[in-house]
């Protein structure tokens, strides 16, 4: 059979992508946010239990000594080295890689726009995300709802007070496609209900939605704080639009020791899942020890932004040449 060599995107789509990149760069140039580049390969990798890095090896010429290297899943760690060194606000358009993730909305290789602001609070960063989106395309302003509010609004559930059994029975009520013996841990149920029950409702709003104040167990690299109701929450937001998860933002955790603990807990969970430990990024921890400035940061999936701009349902249709 003949090879189907043809690019998956049309020439029009290629041009729209170029325009999007140019507009994003223009946006940050005007705000005097510095564009940076950081290595795609690293000897360390994120420990997040459900994030799988591509692994490769480096062999110095003349030796047969292999050194493990990982392709970045986001440029976060390296960009934080620059922040700790005093770069001020920075942004990057980066190719990022996530092993195994392939589907209508996922590609193992995709383009991320990630930026860090030393001047902005998390609320102000949400404003800036909207400002960026409305400047590069025809996006409308976003609604802001806390994690607790969306669970109350759509499922009448007090998500910070409910038991795991409450969550499970709710999942079985709303998701008929679960087998009777289907089991998950608390964060698993939360993620499933969010993706399968709440996200479709958010899509019906026909307006981008920020969800903020996630459960502390999903803090990732964000600070944990106490919300108005006395719940421990992660100072994090996610942006949903058109049924897609577009962006993930943090009020960045600054304490090296707290981050080391999270990395170690992640690796313990990886072991329980039968996955390999990931090498902890000691450079990042040393930089944080030296002092990461107070900052907020967000990663925005540009391929998905392009899907919304061009009303495409498959990520392959907006990548010039697909994985």
């Amino acid at each position, binding site marked *: 059979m003949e090879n189907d060599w043809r690019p998956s995107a049309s020439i029009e789509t290629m041009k729209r992508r170029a325009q999007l990149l140019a507009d994003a760069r223009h946006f940050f140039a005007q705000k005097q946010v510095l564009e940076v580049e950081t290595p795609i390969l690293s000897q360390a990798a994120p420990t997040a239990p459900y994030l799988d890095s591509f692994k490769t090896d480096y062999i110095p010429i003349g030796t047969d000594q292999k050194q493990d290297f990982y392709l970045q899943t986001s440029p976060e760690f390296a960009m934080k080295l620059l922040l700790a060194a005093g770069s001020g606000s920075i942004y990057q358009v980066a190719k990022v890689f996530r092993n*195994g993730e392939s589907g209508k909305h996922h590609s193992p290789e995709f383009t991320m726009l990630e930026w860090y602001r030393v001047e902005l609070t998390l609320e102000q960063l949400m404003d800036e995300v909207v400002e960026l989106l409305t400047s590069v395309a025809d996006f409308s302003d976003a609604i802001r709802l806390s994690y607790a509010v969306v669970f109350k609004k759509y499922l009448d559930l007090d998500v910070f007070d409910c038991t795991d059994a409450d969550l499970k029975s709710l999942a079985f009520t709303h998701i008929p496609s679960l087998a009777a013996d289907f089991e998950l841990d608390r964060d698993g149920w939360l993620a499933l209900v969010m993706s399968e029950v709440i996200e479709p409702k958010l899509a019906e709003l026909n307006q981008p939605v920020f969800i903020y104040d996630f459960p502390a167990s999903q803090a990732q690299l964000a600070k944990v704080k106490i919300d108005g109701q006395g719940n421990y929450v992660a100072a994090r937001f996610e942006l949903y639009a058109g049924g897609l998860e577009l962006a993930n933002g943090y009020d960045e955790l600054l304490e090296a020791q707290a981050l080391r603990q999270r990395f170690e807990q992640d690796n313990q969970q990886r072991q329980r899942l039968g996955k390999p430990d990931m090498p902890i990024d000691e450079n990042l921890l040393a930089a944080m020890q030296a002092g990461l400035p107070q900052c907020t940061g967000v990663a925005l999936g540009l391929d998905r932004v392009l899907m919304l701009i061009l009303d495409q349902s498959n990520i392959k249709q907006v990548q010039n040449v697909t994985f």
Partner: protein
Amino acid sequence: MASVSTNQFKSGLKFMLDGDPCSIIENELVKPGKGQAFNRVKFRNLKTGRTNERTFKSGESVESADVIEVELEYSYTDGEFWYFMDPVSYEQHAADANAIEDCKKWLKEQYVYTVTQWNGTPLLVTAPNFVNLVVAETDPGLKGDTAGTGGKPATLETGAVVRVPLFMNIGELLRIDTRSGEYVERAKD
């Protein structure tokens, strides 16, 4: 029995679910950011023909189904079973009414059909895209009407009723698209 992991899921893959052989229609990855991944799978139960959905944890395994597709020639029916023959080994396979339900009206002796078998038993018989069938009954043809506008119903030798142009007569051989159930053209032989 061999097992397949969700990461091998793709449309057309056959697997066992609750004791029944199933075929995947659509497999969708559900992956929230850094959260746990799921596979939302739309499938057809090959025994009942019904479609349904099931959500799996990514990485879960299911039993693969010993389902194969073979090309067999239709021989005859005794009213209870429909017999298909392997043109090479002459082995006979009996399909029940459930298996031939969708293609019953296109069954003609000596035509080759795609038979989906599970553990050697025919589950589903699929007609070829085109079959040539003789008109058994229709109103008399109208000479001069070659435009084919409007048309009229014709009952074919297998009992299927299709719309044909007004000029068609009993005994003529027609080429039929079994997917749409529509008349295509006069067949050569």
